[in-house]
């Protein structure tokens, strides 16, 4: 093995005219929703973020021949699994990147473990990826439903929103988000006065909102995402629910959703995110580069894809190969830091621990541009944002 590696290295060096120390082919497959509800928060933007990471890593100069391919999983686990299998078996993909929609992500995590690739998860939210269905080759990078609950749920309850009513998207993600948040609310001294399961997807939330209104809750928790959240917020404002004193808590909201709502409608809303483009000069520069190609600001999923790929390429360079187990182990041993995600430490279960931030949407008066939408309320330290590691999921101990 070692001899083979040495030979390969020598050949590679020779082929590159002697300038390079090593020559490794790396193929990254960005698998996400490119046409449906999550196409804006992930989609082509994640491919662009991956390419930016390859460029910034100076992969070519370091002897890594990185190729980036992409596909649309249409938010369907069967479609996603087929693509993942084909990528690993036939196309020589070494790592699968992004994969929003938790059901698809869980399928990809299993396949990745079987094929000894690496799964750099940025888009999915389910905590199951690093708990019930944890795998040694899964790196769950950007956020999860527990972090969202610990951010928004806790902050809102502690700020006086004691009685909660949930509007829950009636599928796995919605229920798990409701459950995580309910726990946080109760721990923080609040109570849950009711909930309604809303068929997914829905356009009209007015009757559910009226039910929430008559429940006497202080806070209406929106355990949904994307278009559902946007419509619910829009209509809550229209029906005077927020003006009458009830607060909305969007539990999974991306910058793109706020942009779609506009500051007028979304003002005052609190949300948890791992990244905001307008944090400092470096995030602004990075986001401007992203915007040049995508015509919009990056979401936290895009930023997460970038950092995760950077850390992955660092592991490839250090280990000199693309073996999934080795790479995942290296990524867990070595901390990572950049301007987008701050300090990141991947735990033994694959959960990348970093700070999360609680933001509030600016009022139209405060907002100075189309994308000038958020102001930071507080920082949630990484060790408080995420759930503690399960012992059986710690893959670093032998």
């Amino acid at each position, binding site marked *: 093995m070692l001899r083979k590696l040495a030979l390969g290295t020598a050949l590679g060096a020779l082929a590159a005219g002697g300038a390079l120390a090593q020559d490794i082919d790396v193929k990254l497959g960005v698998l996400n929703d490119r046409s449906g509800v999550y196409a*804006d928060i992930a989609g082509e933007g994640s491919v662009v973020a991956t390419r930016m990471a390859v460029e910034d890593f100076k992969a070519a100069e370091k002897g890594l021949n990185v190729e980036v391919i992409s596909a649309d999983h249409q938010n369907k686990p069967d479609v996603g699994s087929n693509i993942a299998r084909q990528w690993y078996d036939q196309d020589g993909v070494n790592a699968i990147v992004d994969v929003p929609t938790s059901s698809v992500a869980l399928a990809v995590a299993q396949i990745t473990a079987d094929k000894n690739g690496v799964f750099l998860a940025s888009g999915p939210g389910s905590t199951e990826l690093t708990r019930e269905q944890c795998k040694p080759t899964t790196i769950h990078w950007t956020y999860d439903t527990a972090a969202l609950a610990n951010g928004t749920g806790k902050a809102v309850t502690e700020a006086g929103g004691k009685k909660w009513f949930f509007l829950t998207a009636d599928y796995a993600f919605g229920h798990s988000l409701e459950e995580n948040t309910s726990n946080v609310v109760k721990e923080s001294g609040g109570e849950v006065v009711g909930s309604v399961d809303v*068929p997914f997807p*829905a*356009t*009209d939330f007015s*009757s559910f909102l009226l039910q929430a209104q008559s429940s006497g809750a202080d806070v209406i928790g929106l355990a949904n995402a994307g*278009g559902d959240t946007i419509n619910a917020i829009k209509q809550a404002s*229209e029906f*005077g629910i927020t003006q009458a004193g009830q607060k909305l808590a969007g539990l999974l909201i991306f910058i793109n959703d706020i942009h779609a709502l506009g500051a007028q409608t979304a003002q005052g809303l609190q949300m948890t995110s791992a990244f905001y483009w307008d944090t400092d000069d470096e995030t602004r520069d990075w986001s401007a580069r992203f915007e040049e190609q995508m015509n919009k600001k990056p979401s936290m999923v895009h930023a997460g894809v970038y950092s995760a790929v950077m850390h992955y390429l660092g592991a490839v360079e250090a280990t000199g190969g693309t073996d999934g187990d080795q790479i995942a182990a290296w990524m867990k041993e070595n901390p990572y830091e950049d301007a987008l995600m701050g300090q990141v430490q991947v735990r033994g279960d694959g959960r990348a621990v970093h700070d999360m931030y609680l933001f509030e949407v600016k009022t139209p008066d405060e907002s100075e541009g189309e994308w000038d939408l958020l102001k930071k309320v507080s920082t949630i330290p990484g060790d408080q944002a995420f759930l503690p590691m399960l012992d059986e999921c710690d893959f670093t101990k032998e």
Partner: protein
Amino acid sequence: MFELLGIPPQALLGQLLLGLINGSFYAVLSLGLAVIFGLLNIINFAHGALYMMGAFVAWMLLNYAGIGYWPALILAPLIVGVFGIVLERLMLSRLYHLDHLYGLLLTFGLALIIQGLFRNYYGISGLPYRIPDALSGGYNLGFMFLPKYRGWVVVASLVVCFGTWFMIEKTRLGAYLRAATENPVLVGAFGVNVPLMIMLTYGFGVALAGFAGVLAAPIYSVNPNMGADLIIVVFAVVVIGGMGSIMGAILTGYFLGLIEGLTRVFYPEGSAVVIFVIMAIVLLFKPEGLFGRAA
């Protein structure tokens, strides 16, 4: 105060009113479908995409040309209508002599293309469109807070629906139209330009979809999938009402809005399927639809 199955009557009244508002959208959209099917025999699957276009055109008029809601309420349906006429001239008109299925397939394909194009340029998250100032705010009715804009939606849709019904069923122009669908050759022989009439009818049906789109823009998210989400329900409405029946489409639209509203109170999880359950029952016992005539 009495309670019905644990729901206080105020809440029930509120939900009924909300059902009526949603029914307004169903009514305007299914009316357009019914007109097109009744007079052209085309199952217009592009209706949802054209509804979406109505909302987008309103947004574009505002953001690119500075034209506000009220002019857009007229202009956007006109633009969508003209677009529909182009589609009819270039493609649909070649299919009239073929089976319904061809029209369905063509319009379905067109819907996918239109949605794909909008998705490509505007993304999926949607765009903000504000309620016009004159209609923002609302009234406190005692049992609920009624946003002015929702009230306006009900009024506007009632006017448009019954105006259309009156024009088709009670005027001379409507009589020509109905005659032309019965026997185009004979009506043509009387000197009526049948192809022109059919073209304008399609344009009108499509403009109705555009109109509903503008009505929807301020309250729902303006996004490329907004029509795809709605079109299946609207087709169910048309089937329940009876394919091609104008009044059937209108009344069924409002009626199903109410039923859906009630389901949201008593069994929210079922509110997405209740219309299809009703459709199945109606098809079992009265396959021609509630207001349809047996073929």
